């Protein structure tokens, strides 16, 4: 699931503004069979992974200067890895939350069509 999402993220990130990744995350959440935690996890992992990998690759192209210098510009005390962590974290959290939004959307609007894990009381 995660890898499918990662692949889907790419065209949406390239052709939409920076928040474009929210769309496939939401869609993945709609389709998700798992619970809420799992949905969040899929979104988080996919975006964090993709953003980290891209950032890492792009950073190499500048011989490490991007992460190093931005860690001084942002309040990260010169800790280059902090820039990667922040990047993955922000992207991951947003991705996870949007995936969760998709999962909840289905739960709220489409419960009739899906086997719900929560027993009706």
């Amino acid at each position, binding site marked *: 699931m995660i890898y499918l999402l990662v692949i889907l993220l790419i065209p949406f*990130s*390239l052709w939409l*503004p*920076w*928040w*474009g990744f*929210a769309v496939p995350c939401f869609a993945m959440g709609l389709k998700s069979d798992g619970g809420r935690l799992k949905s969040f996890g899929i979104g988080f992992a996919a975006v964090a992974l993709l*953003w980290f990998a*891209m*950032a890492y690759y*792009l*950073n190499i*192209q*500048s*011989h490490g*200067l*991007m992460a*190093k*210098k*931005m*860690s*001084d*510009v*942002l309040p990260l005390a010169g800790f280059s890895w902090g820039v990667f962590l*922040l*990047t993955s974290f*922000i*992207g991951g959290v*947003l991705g996870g*939350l*949007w995936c969760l*939004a998709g999962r*909840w*959307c289905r*739960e*709220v*609007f489409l419960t009739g069509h899906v086997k719900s894990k*929560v*027993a009706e*009381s």
Partner: protein
Amino acid sequence: MNWRVLLRLHRWQYHLYVFLLIVVTVTLGRSVGTAPALGPLLSPFTGFWQNKPLHLIKKNETFDWPQLQSPVTVSWDEFGIPHIFAAHDADLFFVQGYIQARDRLFQMDMTSRAGSGRLSEVIGDRTMPVDIFYVKVGMRQAVERVYQSILGDAETRLAAESYSAGVNHYVENLKKADWPVEYKLLGARPRLWDVKDIAAVYMVMNFRLSGRTYDLWLAQHIQKFGYEKIRKIFPEVMPDEYGEPYPKGQNTLPQRQGVPATSGFDRIPKFQNWPSERYIQPFATNGSNNWAVASTKTEDGHTYLANDTHLKFHLPAIWYEQQLKSPSMNVYGASIAGTPGLQIGFHKQFGWGVTNGTPDILDWYEIEIDEKNPKKYKFLDQWLEMTTTTEAITSKSGQSTQIELDETRSGLVYSREAQLALTFRWLGATPGNELKTFLNLSRAKNRTDCQKAMVHYVAPVQNLICADTEGVSMHHMGKAPKRLNPGGAYIQDGSKPDPTWETLVGIEELPKTEDPLAGFVYSANQLVHDSRYRYYLSWDYDESYRAKRIRSYLENLGGQTDIIGMKSLQTDDQNLHAGDILPAMISAVSDQPDLSAPQQQLLKSLSEWNFHMRADQWEPSFFDAWWKLFEESLYAQELGPKLKNAYPRIQHTVKLIQQGLEGHSDRELYWFLDLKDFEPITSHIESLMLMSFQAAWKQLSDRYGADPRNWSWSQVQKTSVPHLLNLKGFGRFDLLKHGSRYTVDVNNGENGAVWRQIVKIGPNFEAHTNFPGGTSGNPFSPQYDAFVDGWAKGEYRKIHFLEEPMSFQLEDK
């Protein structure tokens, strides 16, 4: 209650969640206050991760756009310097604009905005004071005038329009992900370039070099103490010994008849509401050195030309280095990013160099205004109406300010109070077509062309060297008010016309020398004429320590001029000021009983110092601290702290002190000292020297420890090259750099040689350059600050001067 029922999401909770999530997402996509928009900034698809450096992947480029008449090739050498080859001038400037935009877009934008008072639109409230100041001094109107003069001449119009079109060709095709990182951090966007922006960049440099308002500070002293006392320590006519006139050549300068009149200027200004913005302060370290040795004097028969310009250190570097070749020119040199052509350049048969001339082209006046109608002022006994223009300044935050510019017959109003106003006139506000001069210099083949190029130039006045294979000359290039007397040093009576501004002194009458007998020319912002010269250009030049050092070095070289000698002089850190005064200071305190053993030891070592301001030595730090404290102890009581008040020129202080120590008896001359009734001047000065010695010792020990070996000069005077926006991650700090305020290699930690060139003109042509920066303005590029370390060490690059495009083996890291 079944907790699972509670956990089941209700619709309204879901809607709230999505709403909040949208709010969070949108907020992360906007900049909040000074914090950047984190979402787009950190995304590897749109953020700073996308600002990959260009210079790692560039090789020779050939541009074949429809806008060009024929293809243009750019050869990038191993230093990352571009060499542009075009078959038409318009194409040359187009591509120059394109690559400068590609490398330095943000910097160009900021420079232009500084000149138009529009920084706050992009940076925010914190630059409002700067914008307000530049609008108040009439920069927008001055920019408009330069703009019109550029458009009014076919040659400059072509260059400026082609250049702007080239910049825009880059900007128009720029994707959001490729915006320079500073825009991403500021939450701002790049904009299109216009000829007016070129005018604004020119005006920024103009003001930086000629917007000296020291007259205001002097006026405040005169109000307090009167002319008699002030003249003693601020001589209106700078004594010849403080200057270095151009070496004598065939030219005779217009001579004055009689002694300059000083009476008639005992008019004490009444104004009280003195402006105090820091931009009003004199820009002391914006100057430069240049010199040239004629081929007739050198053993190898080549003419040597050297120029290093002194401005504030920052990244990206002010100067952009390149070679430009078209049918009308083949020239290498430096241009201010954002302008077509070059401002400093050379080729195999000719070169030119500039230093700031510093004549006073900004005069202040006092006018009477009508208390009940502040737009009415008195002129020739009539009440006239000011002409008001309103300018708006807006900030990124939405805050906006209106500035009213009031024009009078005596200039622009700057400061007001109930019944009086201060106005000023600045010649830089009515410039000529300086761009045309620089374009003509870029095309010049020899000194004749060089001299012809000068006619379009008005401000700021420069000491221009023209050097070709035959010889050298130097001209005070520009115009200045035609003063026979020292009036321009004071606040003058604005109720009547000032005849000195009605006709101006031009190149024909300003100082110059062609084919000097000494075989060389030189300048370092010093007084360039003696007291027999007819006109009064300024009361306030830079100290001539650097100029004297350059002259004596060139005299000693004789014909043995070579590249190494030129480099050695350009990076020379001998402090003539220390040589002048330190021995007297040391002997004044040496016999004092209050000194501790370590202090006596220090004095002994100090007396063996060779006056070189080396980064790794402690002697420069001690001398610097001792002198500063001593100087302050002389004047602070009467004149106030040096930071906020005019102090006498250091050469004059040194002379006063030397005379005082020798037993000069005129107590009126030393009115500023707190002398007791029969106290000899000598012992008073000696006790001040001792006091400041102790204070210097304490200051350095407290800060750096008791061992003088911890007081290294580069520790005490930290040299930094900060980023334009002062972002710590993008600057370079704590460089190991020699030099101080008065050494040839000027360095006060923040200002110094931002461009260095040494050119050997003739058949065995070679040229060496360096500057504290790099080609690229992208902080993530190795080309951003590639030259900083070498420059700090005093190293140079031997440049490539190409006749046709060439492929270079790019540096592989």
